[in-house]
């Protein structure tokens, strides 16, 4: 893809589609920094949040990013991703806050789900909302994309949350031109999605073009796995195979890096971002459909979680 910085070619001024959506994302970051008092960027070490951090860097360069980044730590993360998170944040000199789901459980704010291999996916919402209240954040950047899931396809770039952190999909503010409305009262906040117009392919193309480093588990590696509900799950401290589930070694990579208990791997030999661009372009499954058990609960699993205040 052409990454030339907008030189006049054949008599017209033209940006590539990736430069176009990059410019829009930078515009969004600057609007929020200027109009809100206490923004925060949600950062998990996953590819979308890494791209989001790069865009924030670009928006304020040569100044520093004028807000902290925050990780909602389920306690079930891939160790590779946590290492990467710490290195990444340190390298750009940002401030990292960690809000822990384990602490929410210990404090009695939420109860661990019952059953074998309980997921903490849904519990994150309480931890996130508590952290937003505690720090009095008024704008929260999230890395969600509209191509991920059909409830997200309907969400605004500036998405209003009431004092309970709830999303009301039937009562959203119209969003016109690039004139974003972040007005809110004390106790309310706005979720901001700078990657709204990015697709999974755009993210990988950008990672390849910009030479952005990602956690190693995004790329093909050998791993002990077993098959459950059509997904390949990794054996680890929080996930164990049942007696009838056969363990085998395979070349796999992760398309998303969420909670270890609900994030599956795909068999792949793709060892670089360029390889993955080709693989994603040829894929016939969405990344959430392929590897996220949390979205398989029902037709409206994402909508229901989002209404409660999920990412």
């Amino acid at each position, binding site marked *: 893809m052409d990454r030339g*910085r*907008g*030189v*006049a070619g054949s008599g*017209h*001024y033209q*940006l590539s*589609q*990736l*430069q*176009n*959506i*990059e*410019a*829009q994302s*930078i*515009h969004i970051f*600057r*609007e929020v920094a*200027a109009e809100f008092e206490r923004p925060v960027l949600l950062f998990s070490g996953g590819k979308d949040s890494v791209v989001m951090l790069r865009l924030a860097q*670009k*928006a*304020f*360069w*040569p*100044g*520093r990013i004028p807000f902290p980044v925050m990780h909602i730590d389920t306690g079930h993360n891939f160790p590779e991703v946590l290492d990467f998170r710490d290195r990444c944040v340190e390298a750009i000199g940002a401030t990292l806050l960690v809000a822990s789901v384990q602490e929410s459980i210990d404090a009695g704010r939420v109860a661990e789900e019952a059953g074998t291999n309980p997921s903490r996916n849904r519990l994150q919402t309480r931890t996130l909302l508590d952290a937003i209240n505690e720090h009095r954040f008024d704008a929260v950047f999230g890395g969600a994309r*509209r191509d991920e*899931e*059909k*409830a*997200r*396809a*309907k969400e605004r770039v500036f998405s209003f949350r009431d004092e309970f952190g709830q999303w009301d*999909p*039937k009562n*959203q*503010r*119209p*969003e*016109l*031109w*690039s*004139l974003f*409305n972040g*007005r*809110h*009262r004390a106790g309310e906040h706005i979720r901001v999605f700078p990657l*709204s*117009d990015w*697709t999974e392919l*755009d993210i990988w193309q950008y990672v390849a073009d910009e030479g952005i480093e990602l956690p190693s588990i995004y790329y093909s590696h050998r791993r002990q796995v077993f098959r459950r509900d059509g997904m390949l799950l990794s054996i680890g401290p929080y996930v164990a195979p049942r007696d009838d589930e056969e363990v085998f070694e395979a070349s796999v990579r992760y398309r998303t890096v969420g909670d270890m208990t609900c994030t599956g791997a795909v068999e792949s030999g793709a060892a670089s971002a360029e390889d993955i661009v080709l693989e994603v372009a040829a894929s*016939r*499954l*969405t990344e959430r*459909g392929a590897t996220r058990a949390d979205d398989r609960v029902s*037709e*409206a699993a994402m*909508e*229901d979680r989002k209404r409660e205040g999920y990412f």
Partner: protein
Amino acid sequence: MELLRLATAGSVDDGKSTLIGRLLFDSKAIFEDQLESVERVSRQRGDDYTDLALLTDGLRAEREQGITIDVAYRYFATPARKFIIADTPGHIQYTRNMVTGNSTADLTLVLVDARKGIVEQTRRHAFLASLLRVPHLLLCVNKMDLVDYDRDVFESIREEFAAFASRLDVADLSFVPVSALQGDNVVQRSANMPWYEGASLLHHLEQVYISSDRNLIDPRLPVQWVVRPQTTSQPDYRGYAGRVAGGVFKTGDEVMVLPSGLATRVAGIDSFDGPVEEAFPPMSVTLRLTDDVDVSRGDLICRPMNQPTVGQDLDAMVAWMTERPLQPGDFLALKHTTRWVRAVIRDIHYRLDVNTLHRDESVSSLGLNDVGRVSLRVTQPLFYDSYRRNRQTGSFILAAEDTNVTVGAGMLHGPD
């Protein structure tokens, strides 16, 4: 690869969902798990066929009631272009949703049922596209299979619509006869309509020339953010970050800062990726100036010989989007480029009937989904161009001061 933003609108039965579904499916933008999920839900509901509308209707209430509530955004790409579709319902809140979808569109796709021809809704969609100054309008005459692919049917719809469109401000108007259900002229040219010599719908979307649609004449940079690192390595750096809203900026250009009126030069244009030779819309850049002038968010950088209109008394077409009517004397928050100001409504001159284009001068207020000509006064001067000259510096939104909800959209008139 270029980006094309496209807005569509239509009601349940004109085949819009089928058409979008087919575009997405034939360009391989629908994934197997999405299709399986739609097939499963259609079976559970006892539908006779797979309802592709379920792909775009993402919310529980929409699936249960079989309606589309709001603007949905869909993405697909071909080797030539990436497309973002703003898909809006044709029935509920049509003005609010169509104005929203069209505000960022390069092209509006209007669908007509070949058996019914031009109906009220067709005219309304075309008018709203022209009001929002979408540069390209494409009329798809759908369900050609149900009129035996008859050329005369297509030609008579084309003539009637062209006559109507001549009363509007449409820069580029095209027509394609299609059958979304059968796939005729959607991706491939149809063998059933040899008399049609134009491009297929997808080919048209890939080829339509959009580079000249932006304003590259009037340099405008609304300042968003002042970059001051204040680090030991960059103690004196001061840059003005913003998105170019018009024209081209180069290092060395003589520029003027409004409202101060001070003239200076561009010392350099910076980005994370290195110096920028020329900055043009829609780039996000940071300008450094040679003189140490006072510049803050909400100011505008332009050229001394090419300045926008500066004024507090505004004249605009306003689309009203909430139940509480808009009346003279109302106070509202107004956002224009990078500044919020307070506005008071002075007068409502007329309401425009979006179906007939008739001007009703007897009204004294605008209701939900009305469009009308409004005079308003703002607390501080704005630096603006007419909307027909520049969609960025000629537009504003209105928000209620109590609820903070966005309640209106405005397109400014001014000396062209």
